[in-house]
Structure formats: structure tokens, C-alpha cells
């Protein structure tokens, strides 16, 4: 079994299609582990993994922490504020400090784009980008691909509508290029006020209303609307957003019968997704959460040379 071509999980662009498939395949076996009563492997015993979360996060951090612990790594959480002016220490110094403590892998969540790259330049450890600003969130894309593959049996050839605040979404920033790498067709859907300047650069087609494309979709991926900063600008109201871009029973009727509905969580019920849809069997939101642990286990295992140690054992 060959390893990853990349030293870090930084951006989807840095990964090959083979890297992505290797992680997904490896995650399949870890998913099976997660269904056992004793959900623990000795694989990364003695390795130190730091979850450096410089932006508030509960779900993602918990997912990484569980993943590390199920592989028997020593997982340490480090939280704080992203801005050096607040925290009093630059990211560079934080990186050098962690390096001096001989950490093997750093998972970093940061408010600003590019921070994980900078961290990696300042230290020897492997880095997993746990989400940086509006840039990328590659493990989210991997767990989404894992879920799509399990639900639909394939990724290639599928049409995936990603609906909502594309401009501020690191989820879309990773998922669009990841889908392209595996031969799917991503369409980003939303009003132009929620679009990045050049969605074509990421490899996506653009639709300005959901009803224009709903019938073509194999997957509807509903992004979370940041309710506290949406009304007035970039949206007139959440009510209008829900009417034109929300996933509800009527839209589900118009869609292909096998279309699945995804959401990275946490959901705003009644805004981007109605309660009826969220609780229906078409929604795979909890499958995504479940996949998250397995995919993150796979990423950690492959980055830390678990393949060789497992083969030796």
C-alpha cells in the first residue's frame, strides 16, 4: 500500500485524486472500527496530536479529538484567539513552541486564510487544515465525498448543487475542487451577493436560483447561513432566502427521487433546510458526522506513517 503524496492535508488542490481515494478507502475500514463495542486501535500509540483551535468550534474539534483517541494517539486540545494582538503571541511563535514540544501532528482551525500553510512553514510537524478563514476545510470535503460515495455508490458523473453562502464558505472552497478531482459536476447556487468573484476558478458552474437546477441534482448540499450577519446585506431577509434557496418538501418533490440532502451542520432549520427535510430519510447529515471521525482517523493514520507501522505489526 502506497502512502499519500502530500506531507500535510492543507488544501484539496495539493492532493491528487489518488490521495483522496486512498483516504476514503482507508476510512472505510475505520468506519467498521467505529461500529465495534471497543472502538480503539493501538496504531498511533506514543504519537502526539495537538488540536490547535484558534477559532471557536465544538463539532469539528470533537471529531478530531475522538479520531485521535481512537487511534491511541495522545491528543491535546489547545484553544485561543486567532489574533496575535489579542493573544499576545504570534502564530509563528505558537508553531515554534509546539515544535519544541516535539508534536507529531497539528490540526489547526484558524480564523484567517493561509494560517495553516504559515504554521507548516514554521515547524516540522505534519499539519491538517481544520478550516482556515474563508479558504478551505479539506477534511469536511473528504467526509462529504465519503458520504456521497456510500450513499450513491459513486462520485464520478454526479451533479452536486452547493447552495448558499459560497463566498464565505471554506466548505465550498474545498468541496468544489474535490468533486472536480473525482469527476463530479459541482454547481454553486445562490444570489450573486453570496458568490465569490470567480467561482469558475474553483471549477464550479453557477446558478442564481435553486429551482433552475433542482431537477438535475444528485446531491443538494445546503450551506449554513450565518444568521447574525446575513439580514440586510447580503440578504434582504431570511424569510426570502428560505423561499428561494431553502430545501423544503416541495423542492424535494421536484428533485430526482434518489437525490440526497447534505449539510455540514449546524443546521438552521427553517432557513436553508426545513425541519421536514432535515428529519427525512433523504437527509444524510448524521451520516456525514459519522463519516467525519473515520475520515479524520484515516488522514491522521496516513500522515503519521500508520501504513508502514500497521504493515510491520
Amino acid at each position, binding site marked *: 500500500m502506497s502512502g499519500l503524496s502530500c506531507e500535510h492535508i492543507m488544501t484539496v488542490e495539493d492532493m491528487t485524486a489518488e490521495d483522496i481515494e486512498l483516504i476514503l478507502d482507508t476510512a472505510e475500514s475505520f468506519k467498521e472500527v467505529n461500529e465495534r463495542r471497543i472502538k480503539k486501535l493501538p496504531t498511533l500509540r506514543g504519537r502526539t496530536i495537538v488540536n490547535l483551535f484558534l477559532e471557536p468550534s465544538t463539532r469539528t474539534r470533537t471529531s478530531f479529538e475522538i479520531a485521535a483517541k481512537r487511534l491511541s494517539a495522545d491528543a491535546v486540545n489547545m484553544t485561543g484567539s*486567532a*489574533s*496575535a*494582538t489579542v493573544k499576545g503571541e*504570534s*502564530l*509563528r511563535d505558537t508553531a515554534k513552541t509546539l515544535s519544541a514540544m516535539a508534536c507529531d501532528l497539528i490540526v489547526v482551525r*484558524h480564523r*484567517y*486564510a*493561509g*494560517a495553516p*500553510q*504559515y504554521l507548516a512553514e514554521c515547524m516540522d510537524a505534519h499539519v491538517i487544515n481544520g478550516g*482556515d*478563514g*474563508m*479558504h*478551505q476545510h479539506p477534511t469536511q470535503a473528504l467526509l462529504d465525498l465519503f458520504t456521497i460515495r456510500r450513499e450513491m455508490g459513486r462520485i464520478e458523473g454526479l451533479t452536486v448543487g452547493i447552495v448558499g453562502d459560497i463566498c464565505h464558505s*471554506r466548505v465550498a*472552497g474545498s468541496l468544489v475542487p474535490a468533486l472536480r478531482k473525482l469527476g463530479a459536476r459541482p454547481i454553486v447556487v445562490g444570489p450573486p451577493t453570496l458568490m*465569490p*468573484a*470567480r*467561482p469558475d*476558478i*474553483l471549477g464550479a458552474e453557477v446558478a442564481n436560483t435553486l429551482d433552475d437546477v433542482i431537477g438535475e441534482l444528485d446531491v443538494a448540499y445546503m450551506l449554513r447561513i450565518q444568521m447574525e450577519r446575513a439580514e440586510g446585506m447580503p440578504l434582504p431577509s431570511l424569510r426570502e432566502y428560505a423561499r428561494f434557496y431553502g430545501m423544503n418538501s416541495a423542492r424535494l418533490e421536484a428533485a430526482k427521487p434518489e437525490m440526497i440532502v447534505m449539510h455540514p451542520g449546524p443546521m438552521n432549520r427553517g432557513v436553508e433546510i426545513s425541519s421536514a427535510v432535515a428529519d427525512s430519510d433523504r437527509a444524510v447529515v448524521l451520516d456525514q458526522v459519522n463519516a467525519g471521525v473515520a475520515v479524520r482517523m484515516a488522514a491522521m493514520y496516513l500522515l503519521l506513517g500508520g501504513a508502514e507501522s500497521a504493515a510491520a505489526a
Partner: protein
Amino acid sequence: MPLLLRGGRVVDPQVGLDEVADVLVVDGRIDSVGSDLELPSGTEVIECAEKVVMPGFVDVHTHMREPGREDEETIASGTRAAAHGGFTAVCAMPNTSPVCDTGSAVRFVVERAEEVGAVRVYPVGALTQGQRGEALSEMGDMVAEGAVAFSDDGRDVQDAGMMRRVMEYAKAFGATVIAHCEDESLAAGGVVNEGAISTRLGLPGWPSAAEETMVARNIRLAELTGCRLHLAHLSTAGSVEQVRIAKERGIPITAEVAPHHLFLDEQAVISYDTNLKMNPPLRTAEDRKALVAGLLDGTVDCVATDHAPHAAHEKELEFEVAPFGTTGLETAVPLVVTNLVSEGQMDWPDVVRTMAVGPRACLGLPEVRLEAGQTADITVVDPEARVEVTADWFASKSLNSAFAGAKLLGKASEVLVAGQCVLRNGKVIV
């Protein structure tokens, strides 16, 4: 001591000069230009064979950081960087701490430059008090103390009515208004060009339109008020086009472009290197080409460095929070020689037009010509000098250069300010 610049290619299109000749400097002035000149006893000879002797270069856009951020640059270090880069004069921007918005603040810069400056320093005063865009600054006082122009550089006056009053008032004192064209509601916290690069890197975009709408507004206000307007650091093709049209219509405007916008484009930012974060941001390759074309055809009047020194610990932050700006005084001439002169796009008379004559004309500074009786502000460039842009090469106190590591060809070897040699054999000697 009399000085003879011997055997250089002496270039000054103002007096129709482009020939190998000697330049004799006596008592701070040019005594004569020609061959077989009669030398006073004790004349020191500087060999200039294979070099180019030109009227002294001026940078109309320098951030000196003194007062307030002397850890980043001082008038002493900044003027040495200027001399090292081949400039005989710089215009000091007013966004210091405190802001240079009063006569006494201008006088401080003038006096400090007299005490410690290696080259001339022309202060630029703030357009509005504290550069807040709310109240007129005391421009009359500042002119009386030596301010040569006014600018809120770093920001634009956001309110159009206020900008109109600013221009009207500046006109009373014959002063040029230097506009940093940026609509803050459109730039909206952007840190890189809006487009492919902002999308790819997930960084907030600063669209070309945020500059171009203010270029349009400011040109119309110059037309309305009759105030002389100079547009700082143009970065887009659309801005160049508007300047071209305005000049055809006879509106009194001039414009500058910075070396980083001439020689780099947005693709360079892909590494998240904060030394490439500037305001306005690096634009597309098409914009870059339009800026070069505008400089070559005279639409853009001059090259200006926007020398913006920053402390290392501030540039070592995340891209979105690091300060804007690159140093530029020392790399400008090598970049122009390497990218434009050596490539045959520019000849030396064009260099004089864009780095010596143009800058002075933009702000109405005293002219300098290579002829008898003129002040001896002279720049000598060695086109074959090799430059490697390394940390120890800079005279500036700050190292935040967008061109760090570059290998360039061509550098100032001598700089004379009022006949005094401040750069000799490429080394600052004051």
C-alpha cells in the same frame, strides 16, 4: 571641492542632451557640461565611463515613519535608503504618528531633514485633520512651513462633498492634491485583488472598481474645482484609461505608478507572503501590462515607490491582519533598468522623464536640468551593476521587500545633492 563626473553618457531630454560628456560641479551647481572642460585646481574626478549621468531622481511617494514609528524608518535611515536607491529627493507622506496635519508638524520634518537627511525631503501635509476626512487641515500654515502637496494617503476622502472643499481650499495655496483612490465601501476590508486570486485563496477581495470609481470622482472634482490633482499608485487598466481620457480633455491631472504594480501581478500572492500585501493590491497580468504601456506612452507621469517600511514582527502575522506595503526606494531603479531598459522598452531619456522630470512636474517641485547654473542634483546609474536583493543590502531599517531575493541588473552608483556626493561607488557616504 569641485567635482568632475567624467566620461559618462549624459542624458537630459529637457535640454536635448544625450551624449558622452563631462559634467563639472562647482559650489553646489553645475558649472559646465561638455568635453575638455577647464578644471579648477583640486577638482575631484569621478570616473563615469559606461555609466549614465542624469538629473537627480525624485520619489514623490515615500513613507518615512518619523515621527511615530522610528523602529521602522527614520528620516535619517529613509533618506539613506533613498540615496542608496539613486534618489536626490523624496516626498514624505503625512500618515505618521501624529499625522502631519499642522504647520509645526511640517516644520519638524523640514528641520529634521536639514539635521540628519542624506537627500532632500519635501513634506506632504494631510488634506484633512488627522486624515479623518472630516475637517480641512491648515493647509496655508503647512505651505508656509514647506509642504509641497497634500494627501490623506493610506485613505481617500470618502465624502465627495468634503473632497470638493479640500480641492477648492488647496487651490487657494497653489497646492497639488495627491489622491489615494479607494472607495472604502467597495474595498470593504479587501486584502488582495478581487477575482481569481481572492477566490482561490479565500481572502477578502479589493476590486478594481473601488479604485476606478474614485479615480473617476476625483478627476471630475479636479475639473469642477480647477485644483491640480495627482493620482497616487494607479493599479488598474481602467484607471490608466480614465487618466488618458482626462488628459486628452485638458484636465489638470498627473499620475504615478509603483514598481511593484509594474513588475508583479496577483499570481505572486499565491504563497500568502505578506511582503506582497499592498494597498492597492497587486492586480492581473493585463492590468500590469496596461500600467507599463501607460508609463511608456506618457499617460502615467512618473514612477513612485510608495516605500512603506514595516517592522518584521508585524509582517509576520496572518495575511489578513498584516499591514499593507512594501519597501521600494532601493529596488526601484534596479527594477526599471532590469525590466524596462535592459529589455529595450525604455531608453534612458524615458528614465529621466519618469524618474526625474515627471515627479518634479507632478508636484511643481523646482526643476533640475543638466546645464550650467543649475543646482547639482544628479543621479549616476551603472547599468551593468549586479544587485542581489538580500537583507544586508538594504540601507532602510525595514526588510519587507516584495522583491526580496531578486537578482537585478543596474544600480545608482553616484548621487549628488546640491553638489555634495552622498552615494559613491554604490555606497552611501553620509
